[in-house]
């Protein structure tokens, strides 16, 4: 415990998320699979990945990968907002009778709603700007 207290100051959200990202990169992804982003038409070089990013395998490799990542992120917005709202609810529950703790939970809830509205607007804008509705591709 003594040794743990010494290193406790390094246990903040930045180091924890960094450690999570590094451990995800070293996750034993199967090497037997190869996924292709972009096609080899028009003298372009397709990009091969060992993780399935969700590419369609057509058109420009960079655009294909970018759209795949946009699809990936917009699929996760709902889950992340539910996660954060549940944490806000737990904060509200354990606030007992202190108004400050209740205000913190309310602040988190309002932030979640703002984030959801911002995502919906951005999604609508992207669907409006990009022809063809590739976002479901």
């Amino acid at each position, binding site marked *: 415990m003594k040794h743990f207290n010494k290193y406790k100051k390094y246990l903040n959200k930045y180091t924890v998320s960094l450690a999570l990202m590094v451990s995800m990169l070293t996750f034993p992804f199967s090497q037997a699979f190869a996924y292709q982003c972009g096609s080899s038409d028009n003298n372009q070089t397709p990009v091969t990945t060992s993780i399935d990013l969700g590419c369609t395998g057509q058109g420009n490799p960079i655009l294909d990968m970018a759209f795949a990542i946009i699809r990936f992120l917009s699929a996760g917005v709902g889950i992340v907002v*539910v996660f954060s709202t549940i944490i806000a*609810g737990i904060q509200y529950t354990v606030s007992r009778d202190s108004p400050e703790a209740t205000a913190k939970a309310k602040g988190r*809830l309002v932030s979640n709603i703002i984030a959801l509205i911002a995502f919906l607007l951005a999604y609508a804008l992207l669907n409006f700007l990009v022809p063809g509705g590739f976002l479901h591709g």
Partner: protein
Amino acid sequence: MINHIFTTFADSCSFSGGAFLTLPHWYQYLNGILDSHNNCIPEVHKLTDIWLILLAVTEMLLQLVAFITIIIVIYGGVMMLSSQGQPDRVSKARTTIINAIVGMVISISAAGLIAFLGDQIK
């Protein structure tokens, strides 16, 4: 309905027992294969599998919300029982219980609200 949105993703490696309380495994919604000891080895080669892991963690949190709410409501009830009719202590206990229930309603309605929104968008 909340059960429904969390079970539509279940595919292979169906689980029976081995979980702590009724919490799901973190790899509950991933595809997987059984090894010789009947353990499930989850397969991860899609980027969107990250969301399935987060989904399992969210389901664990939803169950923890219920546990925490019960504990806080009992705590508020004991406060109210031992208040001996003093108005400030009674009102404190009442606020505790109301906050606990409001928090539970926020958490549970979040899952339903997002499921509704997701259906509207898709």
